[in-house]
């Protein structure tokens, strides 16, 4: 297992290097000169040159990349073009709200999605199955931001139960986490159901029934454990959707997170912040998928032991 972990960890390095090259290249590919932008419209060519040097944008491009990568690795992310604050500080204060939001959304949607999927799988062909799957289809079909606006109108404006926006108490989490997770929950439900139904037809499920095992033990112990193996892989990929969705949902609910920061930075062309954020999102995605791979190995002895 330790060897597996080390192998997997090593496997993330090329991914992160590739992403960093992409992120670095993207700023260079954009029209406009970051140094000129940084210096402002009234700067003299000498000023611009000095700023260019200060930003590390002189010399051949591979040197620039290495310098940038080295700085990034040491947490020197530069200053925000817009606020002149340290990028690390800007991101630092926004990081936790987004992390919590995505984790809460991930947690409820995984539990609900797998639950509904198993329930539909057990009752397949009956009305409970159809109801579960109608719910799932609706979940994928409703855009999260639209659902968010409807919920704000109902629960905040009309009923006054929940705050419209902001961050702080658990009430603040309810609507954003729900809207963010709904699509993931729906996909998980459909996927879990089909995996569950497929596994129920396996010979070893018949063996379990032949032992006289109760229906619920057949479902939870023998069927679900095997059906979860493909579901686990899906969970990691779904996390990417969540990170993307967070950008929209945070804007709808004025959530002080990275998603909204990214939207703001893009409109101000705040390149250092954009670069750092994309790197952070990739790192998060890679780490979550690493975790998923480990879970996968834990669930599947064939991977763990070979």
């Amino acid at each position, binding site marked *: 297992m330790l060897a597996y972990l080390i192998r997997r960890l090593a496997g993330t390095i090329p991914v992160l290097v590739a992403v960093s090259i992409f992120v670095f290249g993207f700023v260079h590919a954009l029209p406009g000169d970051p140094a000129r932008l940084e210096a402002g419209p009234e700067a003299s060519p000498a000023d611009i040159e000095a700023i260019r040097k200060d930003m590390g944008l002189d010399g051949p491009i591979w040197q620039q990349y290495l310098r940038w990568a080295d700085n990034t690795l040491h947490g020197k992310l530069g200053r925000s073009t817009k606020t002149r604050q340290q990028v690390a500080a800007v991101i630092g204060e926004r990081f936790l709200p987004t992390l919590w939001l995505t984790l809460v959304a991930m947690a409820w949607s995984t539990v609900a999605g797998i639950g509904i999927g198993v329930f539909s799988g057990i009752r397949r062909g009956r009305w409970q199955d159809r109801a579960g799957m109608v719910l799932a289809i609706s979940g994928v079909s409703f855009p999260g931001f639209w659902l968010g606006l409807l919920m704000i109108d109902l629960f905040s404006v009309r009923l006054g139960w929940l705050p419209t926006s902001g961050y702080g108490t658990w009430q603040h989490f309810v609507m954003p986490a729900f809207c963010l997770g709904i699509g993931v929950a729906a996909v998980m439900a459909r996927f879990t159901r089909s995996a569950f139904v497929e596994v129920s037809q396996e*010979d070893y499920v018949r063996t379990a029934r*032949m032992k006289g095992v109760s229906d619920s033990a057949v479902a939870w112990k023998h069927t679900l454990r095997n059906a979860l193996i493909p579901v686990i892989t899906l969970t990691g990929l779904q996390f990417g959707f969540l990170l993307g969705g967070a950008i929209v949902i945070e804007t709808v609910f004025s959530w002080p997170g990275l998603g909204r920061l990214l939207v703001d930075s893009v409109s101000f062309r705040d390149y250092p912040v954009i670069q750092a954020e994309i790197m952070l999102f990739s790192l998060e995605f890679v780490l979550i998928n690493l975790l998923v791979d480990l879970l996968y190995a834990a669930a599947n002895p064939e991977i763990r032991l070979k």
Partner: protein
Amino acid sequence: MTSTSNLPPGPAPLIDIEGLRVSFPAEGGPVEVIHNLDLTLRAGETLALVGESGSGKSVTSLAITRLIDYAGGSLTGGTIAFTDKTGHTRDLTRLSQEAMRGIRGPEIAMIFQEPMTSLNPVLRVGAQIAEAIMLHQGMDEAAATAEAARLLGRVRIADPARQLRRYPFELSGGMRQRVMIALALSCRPRLLIADEPTTALDVTVQAQVLRLLRTLQQETGMGMIFITHDMGVVAEIADRVAVMRLGRKVEEGDVESIFANPRHPYTQALLAAVPRLGALAGEPLPRAFDIAGVVSQPQNTVRHDVGPVLAVESLVTRFPVRRNFRLRARIHAVEQVSLSVQPGETLALVGESGCGKSTTGRSIIRLEQPEGGRIHLDGADITHLTGTTEARLHRDVQFVFQDPFASLNPRLTVGFSIAEPMLTHNIARGAEAERRVQALLREVGLTPEHAQRYPHEMSGGQRQRVCIARALASSPKVIIADEAVAALDVSIRAQVVNLLMELQSRLGLAMLFISHDMAVVERVSHRVAVMYLGQIVEIGPRQAVFNFPAHAYTKKLLAAVPIPDPTQRHRVMELDESEVPSPLRALSDPPIVAPLIKVGPHHFVARHSVGGSY
């Protein structure tokens, strides 16, 4: 519940099935698949339920255990009177699933055909056995685990305590089936239903499992319903036989009289189609099966006046096993294999799963890349493929695979599949190709109209005929048939074997016949090569190898073949628990390979140690 007329007088039956009817839902109303079935069985007795695919024998077992409810079927008539341990007789057709859970396990247990898929892959085998014990015998986990270890010892698994902690994928097929047997016996059932328990196993493993089942039955006195299509296995294990066809019982009787004096024409046909090892002991040449009263003649098709059409010299195919990008070990699938085939000759390549016989065939036509050795086709060296030699190889050497359904493209008509090799090799086009497709279909016993069909519209036997027609389309000189008849029912198998032999005599084809079925091999082959752990351990004329096997492994292989004659039942109860060693070897540990020693005319045998066992 009185229809015990089939039984000789004695104690009351353990299970008495009367007028059983089973239906499955279908478009346009339910379809009945078991019609009015009567069966009885007493404790300590073994009833073989025999029939070909679609006869309803497996459905019957699902009906008795009421697992049919989970498979979508339903019992629409009849009674299943079952007497449990307490002497209580109950009608299983009327019990709830809740009540059946108390029957399945402690009263009726079952072993399935596929040991590879019948155990839960994510649970340790010990936990899977202990689960049933905890459920039905009220033991705690520690006691149940100890009991599971005892049971594994009883099914002759060495070092049971360690094996309990393993996962199914870590065990061989034979070991898994023994785990299944331990699981089935864990609650001391009164009735054991074994559904094709040895079909997926190699013959030597099959012999082990059959002997084990018989010993255990004698020890426990349980009744056994043994479902099989293999008459050799029936003769080996059954007391009574019920023959099923299309959901009906066509004949029932004790095993001796069924074999000696079958009454129903279907039973007669079934028995006639069964290949019997030793049938050609006095005949050096191959001879087709006698079908429908036509007595076949020995056929002499080998041409000795020319050189071999296919010659393989010291062929080596190894599969690297890498870990962390480094070569760690190798699977020695084929080690220094040399063989040759004359035009019109059939060389059989026999051995058990994993012995390298299929890899040898696949290496010859380069479905696998051999690591060493030379291959000659019609005298020309085709070891290093160039554009022209590659085209020649694929035109002159054709392959027929085991699974005819999987090897035909489901979206193409069979006519197109047959025409494709002609188009590829520029042999014929357009109307000419169409004419040839029709001729080929006639040649393999189908009609030109079949060209328009899709694979799913044909039966298994017809599909294999299509595959043979496709193999013939490029007018090859050599056919490599890899287990080409293994997936077919016995009666169809005999027909397809006869077809291959007829084509050989008509077209002068050379054949490399890869098979694990020794009785079929005896019918078709002129010469036999026995493979073990990637090496040929014995090669020679069929009669010499079968009548005077010189290698210990050949002897073991032949002795393990069940004989379809209950009077010749293997009386010896010696149990052999040895496992075939792995062809996976460390880089520093190459296998010992030495030239074969001549023991008779054209008869050679390995005298060096192969894999340590021989």
